[in-house]
């Protein structure tokens, strides 16, 4: 089912450590999160690992590959 019917996007290459830090900080800031300096290295390491997992899912699917939350309605009975 993957890669059918359309071009597929690719994940940008793994960024440099400096860019990875900047990327994370932008994403956190956009969501109003400020991580204390003492925890930053731990969170950054976890983010690097998560980003690799994210990359596994990019570039696999074309336009016809629909997400699992596409839903179907049932007729509504009048009351």
């Amino acid at each position, binding site marked *: *089912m*993957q890669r059918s019917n359309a071009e597929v*996007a690719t994940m940008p290459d793994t960024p440099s450590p400096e860019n990875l830090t900047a990327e*994370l900080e932008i*994403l*956190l800031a*956009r*969501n*109003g*999160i*400020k*991580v*204390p300096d003492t*925890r930053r290295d*731990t*969170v950054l390491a*976890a*983010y690097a*690992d*998560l980003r*690799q*997992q*994210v990359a*596994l*899912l*990019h570039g*696999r*699917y074309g336009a016809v*590959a*629909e*997400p*699992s*939350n596409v839903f179907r309605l049932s007729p509504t009975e009048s009351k």
Partner: protein
Amino acid sequence: MNTQDSSIAAMGAALRSGTITAEQLARDALARVAARDPALQAFVLVTESRALDDARRADQELRAGRDRGPMHGIPYALKDIYDTSGIRTTCHSKLRIDHVPDQDSVVAAKLREAGGVLLGKLATHEFAIGGPSFDLPFPPARNPWNTEHVTGGSSSGSATAVAARMVRMAMGSDTGGSIRGPAAWCGLVGIKPTYGRVSRRGVFPLSWTLDHCGPLTRSIEDAAITLQVLAGHDPQDPASADVPVPDYRAGLERGVSGLRIGVPRAFFATASAVTPEVLAAIDRTIALLRDAGAGVEDVQLPDYALFAAAGRVIMMPEAFAIHEADMQTRLMDYGEITANRFVLGAAVTAVDYINALRARRELTDAVNAVLGRYDALLTASALATAPRFDAPVDSLSSTSPMQTIPFNVTGHPAMSVPVGLAPNGLPLSVQIVGRPFDEAMVFRIGRAMEQVTGWEDVKLPAFAA
């Protein structure tokens, strides 16, 4: 009567024959909690008066001829993310330390209606994700097989309470393996039913599309009895499935002769964290199942890494959406492990999340295709035995020693079953995965494993009085 080792069915038979009362069962269990829990920390709250009230009511009803079924008069406990009316429900967190719900969760209500005796609320990793931690309002639960080792999480106190023989059944929840992981590391049966099989209403969510409710027990039969009480449609839970519930005990003793079981060997055999004793335990279990008449063959599924990635990328933003406001304003009130995990949800983009949902569809179809040819799958629950507290692992990382999250992604019923002890004296387990809503088959295979592996004869850990 040895009430600490009596099955739910045996306790029920004794209650109905009049050889014991529910009040005596409750008092025995409360005494075990008082004696053992100071060293093990399974309970965050012991509800002694509620337990005795429940027990006396159960006795009165039995005397009056009202029998509520197999859980009538049986002590149990709940992970502290299950709402309990009038009883504090903290999620093991400073953020909800004073939260007292005014309604029972559906699970708590069903167990009450079934005549169960609530002993108390159990430790969990904070909000079912952050632990084991020492910076929370309550200490982490310890593994009764060796208290220097973790239980696994997040249903940590549930595993400790059952493994330490305080209760025969405790409720857990499972978003990436939080029932099956602690069950695996504490020598218990832990079943994550099919997504939608048990109502999640009134259970504090971690990730709406991955959360499942289920029991941790000492035996397959205990698990089957519990799920019989809990399974069923709840129109007020949007995920709840309106699917008939069979008699889970009816086929327990049918054995595995003629069944076909697939083994996605690449899941665990190629994992860098897998240990020789886990591989040996799986191969021994396969050999025993073949001896019992099952056809067991290796099968191919998509790469394990895809399942793990989809699970984490779905879980993190769903969890962050739930905690967004508190993460913005009260970050330091969370435990450090919890906060460090939750903030990652803010770093998952919408496209990342949608790609994970596309993967979920692909992966669910792939598991269903294999289960079209096999009655069940057998794989690892965990790649190693429980680690020490001073060598913790991140169960969500790409190198996690847990192998449970694929079936949160796909929603299939999955159960961890103990199969032996490793040379270090800690339990080893395997995982059985069934077709959607076919928990009966999972139980049937698990019951056969219980018998052929000799687990029923394994000496349980001794506990200091």
